[in-house]
């Protein structure tokens, strides 16, 4: 085994020693995008599954297109795949699999024809491509529709065939654009399970764009939150869901989230109100305060007892979600409380009702942004 060294530079003892330590694998993907609308860097290791989330217009689709090499090359971008700079390489010269939002199966080909397309394009013979294609369809549980043309497939089957088609040529980077977005609730659960199994077995890097927090948390082992072209949070799902650093993620999780500036007590929310937190950060920095709706208590009169945060407002809307009902209160700052249907009845919480809300200081989580 030869160690790498620059030409003319002698292989030193330290380099030999480095050979004996466990090898640090270079990332499969190393991408930098600094354009007019984007400013981010992505490193994805082999076997890593990263969810790219964020509001519409955050630049998620542009990131996918740059990585796949679609469209005209954007200045300020650099894509390195397995150590090779492919920034200027056209899509066929990159080993990137792409599953668009709508599956986009070739309508004039059968399911098998779709799956073998990449293999044939990369030079496989008809027979070996067909064998591999059958194998992939079988693995994804859609072998029985191999001879059907794409328009005859159900949405769930189409999504599986699209995944098989992307995986068959053994890409190093797999890009999924809202892979479950076009499916109904039941099919979504089914395909999500399947996706989880197959992404776990995939040894390349996987980047999936999604709007669905459940999808991000269950499919990815890292979540990158993109807002206005910038990464606002990059962490394991647990951390992102427990300490969301963007209003968008917090809202997505159904949490109350307020941006503001930290004070010695907690957070001065934009608009004036100060939220008291049990665990405040050093004062004077931008931060986000999050509160679970279930931790918000609703009262018809001024609450008694010890809650540190109380303010009043008017019920704006009441929505039912399972056994807990969500009460939206128009106040400064606005807040959502989750209460039992019984409480809604007892307190007569209907639109226009003046109420007080209270939140314990221990329930206010302040995270720097």
């Amino acid at each position: 085994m030869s160690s790498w060294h620059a030409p003319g530079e002698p292989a030193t003892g330290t380099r030999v020693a480095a050979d004996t330590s466990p090898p640090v694998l270079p990332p499969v993907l190393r991408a930098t995008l600094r354009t007019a609308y984007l400013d981010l860097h992505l490193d994805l290791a082999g076997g890593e599954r990263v969810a790219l989330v964020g509001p519409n217009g955050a630049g998620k689709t542009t990131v996918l297109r740059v990585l796949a090499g679609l469209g005209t090359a954007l200045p300020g971008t650099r894509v390195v795949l397995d150590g090779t700079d492919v920034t200027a390489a056209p899509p066929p010269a990159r080993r990137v699999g792409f599953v668009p939002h709508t599956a986009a199966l070739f309508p004039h080909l059968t399911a098998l024809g779709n799956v073998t397309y990449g293999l044939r394009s990369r030079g496989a013979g008809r027979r070996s491509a067909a064998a591999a294609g059958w194998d992939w369809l079988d693995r994804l549980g859609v072998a029985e529709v191999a001879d059907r043309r794409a328009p005859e497939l159900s949405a769930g089957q189409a999504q599986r065939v699209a995944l098989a088609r992307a995986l068959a040529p053994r890409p190093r980077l797999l890009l999924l654009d809202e892979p479950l977005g076009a499916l109904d609730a039941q099919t979504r659960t089914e395909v999500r399970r399947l996706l989880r199994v197959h992404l776990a077995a995939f040894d390349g890097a996987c980047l999936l764009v999604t709007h669905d927090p459940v999808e991000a948390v269950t499919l990815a082992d890292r979540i990158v939150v993109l807002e206005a072209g910038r990464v606002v949070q990059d962490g394991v799902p647990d951390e992102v869901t427990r300490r969301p650093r963007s209003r968008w993620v917090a809202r997505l999780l159904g949490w109350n989230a307020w941006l503001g500036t930290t004070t010695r007590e907690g957070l001065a929310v934009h608009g004036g109100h100060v939220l008291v937190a049990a665990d405040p950060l050093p004062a004077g920095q931008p931060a986000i305060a999050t509160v679970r709706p279930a931790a918000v208590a609703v009262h018809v009169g001024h609450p008694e007892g010890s809650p540190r945060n109380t303010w009043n407002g008017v019920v704006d809307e009441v929505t039912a979600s399972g056994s807990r009902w969500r009460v939206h209160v128009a106040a400064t700052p606005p807040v959502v409380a989750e209460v039992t249907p019984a409480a809604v009845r007892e307190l007569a919480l209907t639109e226009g009702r003046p109420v007080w809300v209270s939140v314990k200081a221990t329930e206010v989580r302040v995270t720097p942004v």
Partner: protein
Amino acid sequence: MTGRRAPLPLLVPAVLAVGFVTLPLAGLLVRAPWTALPALLTDPALLTALRLSLVCSSGALAASLALGVPLAWVLARTEFRGKPAVRALVLLPLVLPPVVGGVALLLAFGRAGLLGAPLAAVGITLPFTTAGAVMAETFVALPFLVLAVEGALGTLDRQHEEVAATLGAGPLRVFATVTLPLVAPGVAAGAALAWARALGEFGATVTFAGNLPGRTQTLPLAVYLALQDNPDAAVAASLLLLAVCALVLVALRRTWAVRR
């Protein structure tokens, strides 16, 4: 009956328009020498003209496809300076009087023409030959095909082509295996229109290729000549052309139904 009743000022011109188109066709059908038709249609001269018409229009269609589909792709998918000018130039034969097209072809490919003189020097003569008739018909038919295919390419969802590219297919392979099959209905519609236009071509053909029976005298030319001394034969040949065109329309309707 569903839908609204048309107001009279719109209804009357609309009915007149239908009548204006229908009446000549009715005339053709009413005055057709139905009893003599079998004999007229099997007349060797007519069959020769028909055969030549089919050969020339098919040749023109083949040439239009070979040149027009790539041209449509270039117009729909690439950006270059002077693209509007190129498009206008290609579409010019749509509005140009065919006779002018024939004169222009003579000036380019005639014995003393721009390209005709060097061609004649190496022994290739195009005017007043069957090849010349094919060229004249291609000249007028090409824009129909380009328009139809460019339109189909313009409305095509690019996603399929992009996926094909990520799967390792180069531009030419993507074109042949994805783009072309997806715009096939548009190509078929354009081909039908182009072929019908080539079949009926008169002005450019007679100007550039002449009127030589068996070589350049296509069915429309034969009809025009026959009208002088054998009107019945002219009507029979016209019926034949009408039937062929009706078939094209039916074929087109089916393609359009598929696209919908």
